[in-house]
């Protein structure tokens, strides 16, 4: 068996059903082996599309996403997507072709040191030098990508290795021996007892749940614990869906810069914060000194390096969120918590929710308000759609107004904030969840960054729905220029743009447009009902801003609203 077939055989044994990629000189033998192999290949229109699609597939399915690119520019085109997966802890294996072993280091045609280039943005990486090692390296790559804190692994493979015949020993190759890598899954019992004690004693507790809850599969455990201990739950952007947002009493929505006022007030005033699978990113904490100043901090994370990185922690628990939450619930039940124990706090939280609701305005001066579009999408899909987002205002509106009730139903580039992520990610998500309606809530700027993937959606008839909240601006930067830079809209007006309806039609997809609020629901219903990829161009109020907002570096309870202008 040659190296190329051994690679694919290893993928098959890892349960890989689909890979996303783009061929090139250094991966021709691999693609030749793929030609009649029982793994589906999705040919994207750009390598960046392939890596984001693999990312979206991984987030929607919980499996490891796989992408393939050739050496040189193919590989470097993956870098943004690899960094994106790294910052959001998404399990990914990126296979890159490399020039022949004897040409490495000679500046050969399409040679780039992708191993070196990606060192700061991978969980681990390999430059394979011996064909016999290919199967073992690939199994190791999958193991590292999906265990512990998940992340991207790059496997760089010189083309001559894929042509070399090897003795393939599938059992031997699957034995993992990594003396330097033993992630802690189970939380320390003593720490869990201490956490339970702290929670039982708290008068004003809040849970802050993040992407780690979702990636560990611990959403059910989180729900049980929150309901049992009767503690309100706020989430990070990547934690959206870890707790049902339709839980009227306990769900506080998103925390941070564009979080809900009630979440930010609750965290600022709490006396205990239980952070689970979160990393207390600066977009969440605002000014650290003013973040939950009176709170005891319990922090659960599988990555020990996250504990006390940004926020000083009182009770650290290193472990898998799902496992720790389950153990914590067992300990909490020993305390026989009465729901009355923190009644004044729960009344206070309910008051904040009532006095600072996330209101939806339908239109203003005849222009469609973006939040109305997001709310309508959420309503007509009954909160069951998989919502992907681009980055910027569209992303924040999507996060604020989509009512997500289940994990893996909100897919967004959190840490890296990658414009152009949403559309290819939605293609990957739709392949992972063919039964679900998959929607990319987009901005006109972000969508144009990977608009070429319409070709991919049409090629494989992947019926994703791109809803452009079209304001003809790079809206989030424009909002900052509006609020903090004296309305000097430097390089943020992109009114020169294609006719998105005609563009969709040119690709053979369906195109729709809504320019008035009363058209929105009907257009969306028609677009969602069809089996075709669709682009819905919704002309929203051009200078609408995302509210509320914490100015950069501010305390999170000092939020600006439209009324403060």
């Amino acid at each position: 068996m040659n190296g190329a077939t051994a690679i694919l055989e290893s993928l098959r044994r890892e349960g890989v059903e689909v890979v996303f990629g783009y061929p090139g000189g250094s991966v021709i033998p691999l693609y030749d082996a793929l030609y009649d192999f029982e793994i589906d290949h999705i040919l994207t229109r750009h390598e960046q599309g392939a890596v984001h699609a693999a990312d979206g597939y991984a987030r929607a399915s919980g499996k490891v996403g796989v992408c393939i690119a050739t050496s040189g520019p193919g590989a470097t085109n993956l870098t943004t997507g690899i960094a994106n997966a790294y910052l959001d802890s998404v399990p990914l294996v990126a296979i890159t072709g490399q020039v022949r072993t004897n040409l490495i280091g000679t500046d050969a045609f399409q040679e780039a040191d992708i191993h070196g280039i990606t060192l700061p943005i991978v969980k681990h990486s390999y430059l394979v030098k011996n064909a016999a090692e290919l199967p073992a390296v690939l199994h190791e790559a999958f193991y590292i990508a999906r265990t512990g804190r998940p992340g991207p692994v790059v496997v760089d493979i010189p083309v001559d290795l894929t042509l070399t015949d090897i003795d393939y020993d599938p059992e031997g190759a699957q034995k993992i021996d990594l003396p330097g890598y033993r992630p802690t899954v189970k939380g320390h019992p003593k720490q869990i007892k201490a956490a339970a004690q702290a929670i039982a004693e708290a008068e004003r507790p809040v849970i802050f749940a993040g992407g780690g809850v979702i990636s560990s599969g611990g959403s059910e455990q989180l729900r049980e614990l929150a309901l049992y201990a009767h503690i309100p739950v706020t989430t990070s952007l990547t934690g959206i869906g870890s707790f049902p947002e339709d839980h009227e009493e306990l769900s506080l929505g998103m925390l941070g810069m564009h979080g809900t006022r009630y979440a930010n007030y609750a965290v600022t005033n709490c006396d205990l914060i239980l952070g689970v699978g979160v990393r207390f990113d600066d977009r969440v904490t605002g000014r650290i000194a003013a973040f939950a100043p009176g709170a005891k901090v319990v922090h659960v994370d599988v990555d020990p390096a996250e504990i006390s990185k940004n926020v000083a922690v009182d009770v650290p628990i290193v472990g898998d969120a799902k496992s720790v939450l389950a153990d914590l619930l067992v300990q909490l039940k020993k305390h026989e918590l009465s729901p009355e124990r923190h009644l004044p706090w729960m009344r206070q939280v309910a008051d904040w929710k009532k006095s600072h609701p996330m209101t939806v305005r339908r239109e203003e001066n005849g222009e469609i308000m973006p939040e109305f579009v997001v709310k309508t999408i959420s309503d007509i899909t009954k909160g069951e759609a998989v919502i992907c987002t681009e980055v910027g205002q569209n992303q924040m509106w999507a996060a604020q107004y989509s009512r997500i009730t289940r994990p893996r139903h909100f897919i967004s580039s959190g840490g890296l904030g990658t414009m152009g992520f949403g559309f290819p990610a939605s293609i990957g998500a739709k392949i992972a969840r063919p039964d679900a309606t998959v929607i990319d809530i987009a901005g006109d700027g972000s969508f144009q960054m990977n608009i070429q993937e319409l070709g991919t959606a049409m090629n494989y008839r992947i019926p994703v729905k791109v809803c452009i909240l079209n304001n003809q601006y790079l809206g989030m930067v424009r909002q900052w220029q509006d609020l903090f830079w004296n309305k000097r809209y430097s390089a943020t007006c992109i009114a020169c743009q294609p006719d998105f309806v005609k563009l969709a039609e040119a690709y053979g997809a369906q195109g729709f447009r809504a320019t008035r609020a009363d058209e929105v629901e009907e257009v969306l219903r028609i677009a969602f009902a069809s089996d075709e990829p669709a682009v819905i161009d919704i002309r929203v109020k051009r200078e609408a801003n995302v509210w509320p907002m914490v100015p950069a570096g501010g305390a999170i309870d000092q939020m600006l609203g439209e009324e403060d202008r």
Partner: protein
Amino acid sequence: MKHTLSVLVENKPGVLNRISGLFARRGFNIDSLAVGETEDPKYSRMTITVDGQDQPLEQVTKQLHKLINVIKITDLDPATSVDRELVMVKVKADAANRSEIMQIAEIFRAKIIDVSKTMLVVEVTGTREKVGAIMKLLRPFGIVELVRTGRIAMSRGTELT
């Protein structure tokens, strides 16, 4: 404060790159770094001295631990560890002062490993302080060139590094 980290790693290509890159990215300057195979050729040991004054070392050691090829990290306490550095120094020496230099070398148990008409090469092994002391004495003669291995260190007694 200077820290001496002893890092046990898998002896694989690219590991040094991963580790030095991590220090640079997290804003640490490496003062010295010495690498070599251990008693088991599967592993290498790196002795890294860094300045932990500006920011705590904890975050960078935690990040080091996350590298798949890193097995163990020890922040060595000078009180319970021994450390050495090897320095070769080329000093100007003529017939008039050669014996004086040789005397200094003898006091410091340094060796003369090369002699020419106008130069001596002195090999010094010892702690940073000892190396500093002999350099101070040799400087007036004229130090032409100096190379050092970087510090290596090990726990005292039965304790394993």
